[in-house]
């Protein structure tokens, strides 16, 4: 059974399943480093997943769909930004509002556009950039499947994790961003625009969540189902914490969740043999999130100013 479970496909599926979480988590690390918590990613992924499918069906071009997904998510992220940065509302409440609005608007549009609740019509998903030939040798099957079999947004996610890590620690933008999340007043007194810096960070997080939603529907599932994100936004937040608020760390932590998800899917196929009800497999990613948080939270230090609204002038 071991050989049937541990296949190259298991690892490739782990990376695929990790991708929406990872994209959102990398965005979260940027957002939280600027001092704004973002539990709105659940909703952002939801609106972008829907927008991606709806626009693709409307226009007939999946890349326009991807673009629409990003735009939709950024628009909703700006609600969170406006409320939590300019209006100085509680960041968790403002994000909760965005989550519920996303649920309502996707459901409403679903019924208005498609005439029924539940699931949209299907779209043709973006194909992987390479598929391993059936007659490839075992070595190439492993390497090809694990490293080269993905769709474009998966690779984009990897690139962004590396690029944003570099940017956070090596660029002017990154230094200022880190200062914003630790001591915004200090940044303000040396002429760094706190509100603008935080806005950009939230919008970046919005764009990343948009990519996550696009990946979910346009590269993986091929249709939109109400509330299909199923807590991925929250898991992404946990991954960001586990990754200690760094883009690279958040990405790697997401791989862990992706692997758990891939494993439970695989194990479900064998549920008759091992005789464990499927619900317990489905619980696995959520249980893992709790376990990971229990193990890591006390040791990881959050940005000092996280969650605190900043007031520019008295």
């Amino acid at each position, binding site marked *: 059974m071991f050989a049937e479970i541990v296949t190259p496909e298991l690892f490739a599926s782990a990376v695929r399943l990790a991708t929406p979480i990872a994209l959102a988590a990398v965005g979260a690390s940027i957002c939280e480093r600027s001092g704004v918590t973002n539990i709105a990613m659940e909703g952002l992924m939801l609106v972008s997943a829907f927008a991606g499918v709806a626009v693709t069906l409307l226009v007939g071009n999946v890349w326009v769909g991807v673009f629409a997904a990003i735009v939709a998510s950024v628009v909703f992220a700006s609600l969170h930004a406006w409320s939590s940065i300019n209006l100085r509302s509680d960041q968790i409440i403002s994000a909760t509002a965005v989550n519920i609005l996303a649920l309502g608007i996707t459901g409403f549009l679903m019924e208005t556009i498609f005439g029924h609740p539940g699931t949209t019509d299907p779209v043709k998903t973006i194909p992987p950039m390479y598929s391993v030939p059936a007659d490839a040798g075992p070595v190439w099957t492993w390497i090809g499947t694990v490293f080269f079999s993905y769709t474009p947004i998966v690779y984009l996610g990897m690139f962004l994790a590396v690029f944003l890590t570099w940017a956070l620690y090596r660029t*002017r933008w990154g*230094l200022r961003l880190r200062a914003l999340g630790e001591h915004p007043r*200090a940044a*303000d007194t040396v002429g760094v625009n706190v509100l603008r810096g935080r806005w950009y960070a939230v919008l970046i997080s919005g764009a990343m969540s948009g990519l996550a939603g696009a990946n979910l529907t346009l590269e993986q599932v091929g249709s939109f189902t109400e509330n299909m994100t199923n807590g991925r936004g929250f898991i992404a937040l946990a991954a960001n914490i586990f990754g200690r608020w760094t883009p690279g760390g958040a990405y790697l932590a997401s791989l862990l969740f992706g692997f758990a998800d891939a494993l439970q899917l695989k194990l479900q196929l064998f549920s008759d043999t091992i005789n464990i009800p499927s619900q317990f497999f489905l619980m696995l990613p959520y249980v893992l999130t709790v376990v990971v948080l229990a193990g890591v939270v006390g040791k990881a230090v959050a940005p000092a100013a996280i969650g605190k609204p900043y007031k520019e*002038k008295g």
Partner: protein
Amino acid sequence: MAAEPRAENDATIKTSGTRPILELHHITKRFPGVLANDDVSVQVAAGEVLALLGENGAGKSTLMNVAYGLLAADSGEIVVEGEVVQIRMPRDAIALRIGMVHQHFMLVEPLTVTENIVLGMEPSGFLGKIDRAAAREKVVEIAKRYGLKVDPDARVGDLSVGMQQRVEILKALYRDARILILDEPTAVLTPQEVDELFQIVRGLVREGLAVVIITHKLDEVMAFSDRIAVMRGGALVGETTPAECSEQSLARMMVGRDVVLRVEKSPVHAGDVVLSVRGLTVLDDRKLEALKGVSLDVRAGEIVGIAGVDGNGQGELIEAIVGLRRPASGTVSMRGKDITHASPDDTIASGVSHVPADRHRRGLVLDFDLVENLALGDHRRPPIGNHGILDRAAMHAMALERIVDYDVRTPNEYVAAANLSGGNQQKLVLARELGRDPDFLIAAQPTRGLDVGAIEFVHRRILAERDSGKGVLLVSMELDEIQSLSDRILVMYEGKVVAEFEGGTVDAEELGIYMTGGSTPSQASLKGGGTDA
């Protein structure tokens, strides 16, 4: 340009001959309920040190925050080198080469010295990549030029307060400041560090900078300034020079009436030991030994003052005594009863009251009304708490009694504590902690941020506790306060009691030497672990 005649009052107008580099004209700034700056005009010239003197709340910091673009004035204008300028945000001030060192340092602790200094003006290249070598080089060069030694690669959070202040000054110099504003720069320094700071300031002035020092300390003003502007209640009440005034006359200007600079104190009648600490070792949040085997006793009817630079274990000592922090070893006992591992609640029950250093963070629940605030800590015990049920009537009666006894100025007992002034909030804390009639009181920074009237009130109340036979442990950064109230003074340095003196037998200079880890042959009575006298 000579100074123009002023209409404000009888103050003498002087400049140091050169034309002013920074002029503030008729600045008015109103906060909800407070007129913080009332038509204030001051100026400073290159090569001079202007002291902006006034007690807490007089509007000095507000005025300088306006000059630095952190606050927008309601009216008035700012002139830099003869030109009217608009300073809407710090960036504008920086561009006009104004630098400011804030009372609470504006440093990002996890970042390095270099990163903190260049933040906002980073030398960078393609894609905004920071040229770290260039940044470091520039920092080293400036530090060298002005004689400000500091490690450019150190993490700022690991530096001492004095060092952090240098980083702040370097931040301004890196931005080519020619006007430097220092807001209460000596509040956190030892007397020796204060001397060093003023050496640095003198150096800067020689290089042609204009320096504004915001302070409420009369002796410093007399010693280091070229010119003095005095503020009271938001208005400028006079300008003078050290040569033309005395500490007494300055104090009168600052407070608006004659003030007693010393508190009157009856002779000490110390009784039995109330609180006894033996070999106490405590770890801080980073698991480092913040307190290293400290022993001390406080007797009934005496005030024991603890002098020391902030962060030398005083906070951990207090937390360990009141049960907020578990000691690694050693004992704490109250009247012979061991309370080493007692919870904060049990500690209160054993007769310990605690006026915390930060009244907003630890002293009050700002959103609670006065009734609920005045019950904190007493709420579990009769008459208020009976088997888990609150007796609201008893709570109310107790609150009214405490409000009257401690003269808390409030419209009624149902306003939120947040709506009271700082002085009244501190009275609220005192009313609760002293109203409980404790055997032993810890007063940490009991007068921080208060005006002279409130300070007098707090001092009198603490002395009254002592005179009625309570033991008092006073922890303060203000050496004046320590010296005028304490019957015995302990000096803490790096988690140890390094010296002990009878009250009135030691001067600030000597205390300062011990506070920085030095020792002198003239020491009065150094006791290894600081056991009872």
